[in-house]
């Protein structure tokens, strides 16, 4: 596609439920990032995929968070047993590869509200 596509755009879920957020990166981009943006906060790194390498999961806040990337393209971020503090915008980004010279493009985000 022309840009990074994320779904759903908005999700309201009850505390304790599991949610899945999807990211479809720009075609041909091998690097894929997930960031979280809480109200009034900066973007917080969650996880990074580069090609077939093991993902960098160092930013995941707890073991309730996990992500996978199938076939080197689409990625799914899963949050289990959601808590109210998980309410945030989850942003996906992609770039051609992890080299510093490549522009990193963001999607419009998935707005998660846990009630």
């Amino acid at each position, binding site marked *: 596609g022309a840009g*990074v596509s994320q779904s759903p755009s908005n999700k309201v879920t009850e505390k304790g439920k599991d949610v899945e957020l999807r990211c479809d990166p720009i075609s041909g981009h091998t690097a894929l990032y997930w960031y979280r943006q809480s109200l009034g906060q900066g973007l917080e790194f969650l996880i990074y995929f580069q090609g077939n390498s093991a993902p960098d999961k160092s930013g995941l806040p707890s073991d309730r968070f996990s992500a996978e990337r199938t076939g080197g393209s689409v990625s799914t971020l899963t949050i289990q047993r959601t808590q109210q503090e998980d309410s945030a915008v989850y942003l996906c980004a992609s770039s051609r590869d*992890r080299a*510093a*010279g490549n522009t990193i493009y*963001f*999607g419009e985000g998935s707005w998660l509200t846990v009630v």
Partner: protein
Amino acid sequence: EDQVTQSPEALRLQEGESSSLNCSYTVSGLRGLFWYRQDPGKGPEFLFTLYSAGEEKEKERLKATLTKKESFLHITAPKPEDSATYLCAPFSGNTGKLIFGQGTTLQVKP
């Protein structure tokens, strides 16, 4: 520890009133610094990447500059449509990640 601080947090300008936004950083293995614009309810939109001290890039009313410890985003004769949050994000070559500041929210009044 990698740190990025943007100032001011909020800035109100009259249309045509030029100003600058600051981004101070301490990042290991800096391999570039990105500027993004973010409108409410939207994802960050790429503006510039700067790679070395002394480099400058321009786009319409915006000019970004870089030193070894800071980057500035200069806005010349802003218009109301320039109102947005501007995000600074150095790229760490050590970790392969963008490290974001809190952003500066700019409001330009007609």
